[in-house]
């Protein structure tokens, strides 16, 4: 007999060892997320996938599925709070969608739309962040980094390199590059690396590709993120 739990009143089957988000995705149920990606070790940092498991808040991307769990995901309360957490990410960095070439392909932006976010709500931090355009093919705009560590994990787990890590503490966290100069051009990163393509926002971009697809015809212009996520098995894919 297959094991199952209840998610917003639906019976969701799962296999031993699966997390809540994995079982939900397999059953065609979208739970908002940014730091989660099915190909990589669960992280549990963005907290957008927070759900109520038997009354207690848990991250769906790290919490193991178990029988008899009563899980609430799509409640007014949780979605309102998810919107606030997304707004925290927006005010922490400098996210200016109209001027960003990732617009329309950006998961942060798409999740914000999904959660009906229409303003930033909190005061901006106006953080001073750098731009690293040193690499011939790849650009880092630190203004848009949300510390999901997907590039860190992709470089380590898929590319077999250690190009990225996170330095600093608290609100002063920063993405750091493994090079004596700290610059991307002096690192081992190649444009074909998974780490160069995994960024859910516009923090890591491939040069000279930004406008190949016009705004209006991009991934999330055509389909909202909940649909895209379920068809691609992840938040979205690089175009």
């Amino acid at each position, binding site marked *: 007999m297959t094991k199952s739990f209840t998610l917003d009143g639906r019976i969701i089957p799962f296999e031993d060892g699966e997390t809540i988000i994995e079982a939900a995705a397999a059953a065609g149920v979208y739970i908002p997320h940014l730091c989660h990606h099915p190909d990589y070790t*669960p992280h*549990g*940092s*963005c*907290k*957008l996938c*927070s759900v109520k498991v038997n009354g207690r*808040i848990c*991250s769906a991307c*790290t919490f*193991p599925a178990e029988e008899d769990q009563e899980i609430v995901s799509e409640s007014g309360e949780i979605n309102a*709070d998810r919107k*606030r*957490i997304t707004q*925290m*990410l927006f*005010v*922490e960095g400098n996210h200016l969608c109209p001027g960003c070439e990732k617009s329309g392909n950006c998961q942060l932006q798409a999740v914000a739309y999904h959660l009906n976010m229409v303003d930033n709500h*909190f*005061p*901006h*931090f106006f953080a001073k962040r750098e731009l690293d355009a040193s690499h011939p093919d790849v650009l880092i705009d630190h203004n848009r980094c*949300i*510390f999901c560590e997907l590039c860190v994990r992709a470089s380590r787990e898929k590319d077999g390199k*250690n190009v*990225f*890590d*996170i*330095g*600093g*503490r*608290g*609100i*002063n*966290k920063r993405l*750091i*590059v*493994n090079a*004596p100069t700290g610059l991307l051009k002096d690192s081992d990163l190649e444009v074909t690396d998974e780490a160069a393509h995994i960024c859910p926002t516009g923090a890591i971009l491939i040069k000279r590709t930004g406008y190949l697809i016009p705004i209006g015809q991009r991934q999330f212009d055509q389909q909202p993120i909940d649909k895209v996520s379920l068809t691609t098995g992840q938040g979205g894919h690089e175009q």
Partner: protein
Amino acid sequence: MEEIITKISQRYDHDPVNLLQILRIIQAEYHHIPDAAIEQLAKLLSIPRTHILAVAEFYSFLHLAPRGRYELLVSDSITDRMLGKQDVMAYLAQQLKVPIGGTRDDGAVSLDNTSCTGLCDQGPAGLINGLPLTRLNKSRIDVIVDLINQDKPLAEWPRELFAVADNIRKPGLLLNNGIPLGEALKSAFVRGLPETLEEINRSGLRGRGGAGYATGWKWHLCYEGPEEEAYCDIETQRQLQRYVICNADEGEPGTFKDRVLLNSYAHQVFEGMTVCAAITGATQGFLYLRGEYLFLYDKLQTILAGRRQAGLLGSHILGQDFNFDIEIHLGAGAYICGEESALIESLEGKPGIPRNRPPYPVTRGYLGKPTVVNNVETFFAATAIAVNGGEWFAKIGTEKSKGTKILSISGDCARPGIYEYPFGTAIQTILDDCGASDVLGVQVGGPSGAFISDQEFGRKLAFEDMATGGSFMIFNNSRNILDIVRNFSHFFAHESCGFCTPCRVGTSLLKNQLDKIIEGHGSAGDVAALEEICQLVKKYSHCGLGQTAANPVLSTLERYPEIYQSKLKKISYEPGFDLDGALESARRMAKRSDKAAHLAQIDEHHD
């Protein structure tokens, strides 16, 4: 330098789990972590340089830019402030001619703030190159400034400057009945190990760090190990690697009882760890000592050596088929490492970022192996229970909180120091004993605990009522509640590890929002906005730090809403953005500072 770095790395077997220990020594040697050292270590330890950078940038006591040959830090904890910390800091800066947060041009001295140093009973306190300076005042500072200007090595400074008193004011069941060397281990072997675990269970002992998890049950789970290994035979079971860790990262502002236990009862703490190891089958133990307690390090090493000599550590302890030893690892200024999984990460030489749970440390802890992490006081009590039995302990206290609790009392009272009380003691009794009068309120359990008002002093010390890891800070009616809350909120924003969004961004939003209100820029709706941030941080944060970071605001907002409201302006909205401040760089470029170059954000008289 290359030779020195190689030697340091060699001392630690070029093992990356020792990275934090290695970096501490490099910092002490060069007063920063030089780039060349990072490059060299990356090769010696075979790890990416980014990993070293991540560790160096995470811990407050490590720096990438050079600090002074005398690194001077002053505790910015609220009780130090109440003892005159701000005057002390200003005087130090003036006499040493160094800006706060900066290094003097000649490289001799740097001066900065630090989180609570665990010397709240003898503040204002500070650290110089990691060693404690207590009861700072003008005359002591004059001596210190002279010594620094003479470039005198710390070893030649008057010992009296570094004297740390125990201040045990009221010993109770445990502090009055110290256990002689080896007694608990002998009792445990005579009684039998499973039977001794049963005594620990019977005692009802719960974790003394604050969370209160049942100690016996934790030890039992560690012995069982992960589910997939539960069915192997007893012999294989015995061979599995397990670890015992003593959490001496006593970072909660206002608590210093572990400092005293390790200074005067260290044998009994180590013996508790050894009893735990015998019961769980661990062969390796660690004392994770907060960096602020560096002054205890040599003394503790001597005690460990003595225990090895006495056959109480090492191989075949007391002639039994039982091997166990204890290593001391030092922290480097990160409150978050008091969280057990962050502590384990730190022990593994990484930034102290709490892990996702499950799995819990009892099944997957240090290096992925079953690990017991207990507070200093828990091991201290366990030793006494192993000798005297569970009943001896359980007959004291309340139904859900057995035995006694050791409190660190600081703030507005005549006799700050260490007090031991049976659980169930009323707050008023404690206030009377330490000589506190005209009391406004008490912060029980430190910033992560709760602020109670003078209407609640009938409440009891107990897990089911006022739980505390030991911090007990008293405030009299001359104190301003908002100053206290502000100090705590800045503390949490500073100590947030930054892993999860709600804590990383939320604690800073909270800090800024509170500052806005306190500085008189708040308007209608700003208190509600503050409360909204608090609820988000509390509800969605990854670990205990974030989940409790809003407590100072929430517990005072509940009791004194009028204090917050009275700070608000009567206009309907005031932006969080400082328009005039944003024009500063333009004024600088235009070399103007006249009135017309300033902008009144909102006409103050407009309401």
